[in-house]
């Protein structure tokens, strides 16, 4: 599954269970994030054993984007079937600040922030 726009892309590879988000997420509200949310929720609803959310190439995430990703995490939590890992990087300081909040939503979530 893939969503590809000028400023961002979201790609899910079912074979390796990786959702890759790249670019900048600056969309306006829940309505504009709906395609991304629909993709994420469909992945969550398939209840794979493992999922990796790779945001190392996601340079920017606005609060509406945080809201969208958190809905995905909460959906995964609801199914109680999937181990989630989030891959981030120190090269984007926002990730060290904001991604850890998802662990509060889903305590079993593994967060890996890679060094530069």
């Amino acid at each position, binding site marked *: 599954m893939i969503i590809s726009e000028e400023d961002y892309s979201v790609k899910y590879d079912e074979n390796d269970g990786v959702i890759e988000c790249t670019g*900048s997420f*600056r969309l*306006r*509200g*829940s*309505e504009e994030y709906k395609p991304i949310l629909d993709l994420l929720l469909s992945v969550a609803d398939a209840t794979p054993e493992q999922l990796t959310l790779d945001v190392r190439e996601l340079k*920017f995430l*606005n*609060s*509406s984007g*945080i*809201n969208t990703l*958190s*809905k995905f995490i*909460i*959906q995964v939590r609801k199914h109680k079937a999937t181990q989630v890992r989030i891959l981030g990087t120190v*090269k*984007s*300081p*926002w990730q060290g*600040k*904001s991604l850890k*909040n998802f662990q*509060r*939503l889903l305590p079993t979530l593994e967060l890996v922030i890679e060094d530069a």
Partner: protein
Amino acid sequence: MKSILGHYVERVQGSGEYLTLGFHPALFPLQERWRNNGLSADFLAGYVSTFFPGEEPDKGDRQVEVKDAVSFIANELLENAMKYSSSISHSIVTIEVFLEIDHVSIYATNSVTDTEIPGFQEHINLLLSGDPSTLYIECLERNAQDETEDGSGLGYLTMLNDYMVTLGWKFETSAGQPTVTTMARLSV
């Protein structure tokens, strides 16, 4: 009539480095203008970061941190300002970044309607009355349950919870038009 909420600190004109951008939201549809929020926020952040030179090993990280934080905060403030003033004719949005010795202050001013002010102030008071960390998670959980929600309120909470900014608001009337100025102060 002026009213102040939160930890609003008046801009000190004539001291320190600053940059001001101004927009007329009603001139272009919000959809067309939305893209410019990121361009403006990144420009302000890039400008501010030049005052944190990166020659020394640890200074480089600090420059990236400040740039990243200002970009997020400025973008959120601009998104709010554009959203809430785009339907008001002759409205003006300004965003100003003031660089002082140990903090960066960002002020975003936008027009607001009289009918919106009480609800907005109530929202601010709720924000100020609780622990940001708790309110943040409660907001995410609540938004996930409500299909009609538009994610409002999370911007301020993210600034408070993740960036430890100080927030303040000034409501006043200028040339007969009610305005609100939102201040976010970031320690650097």
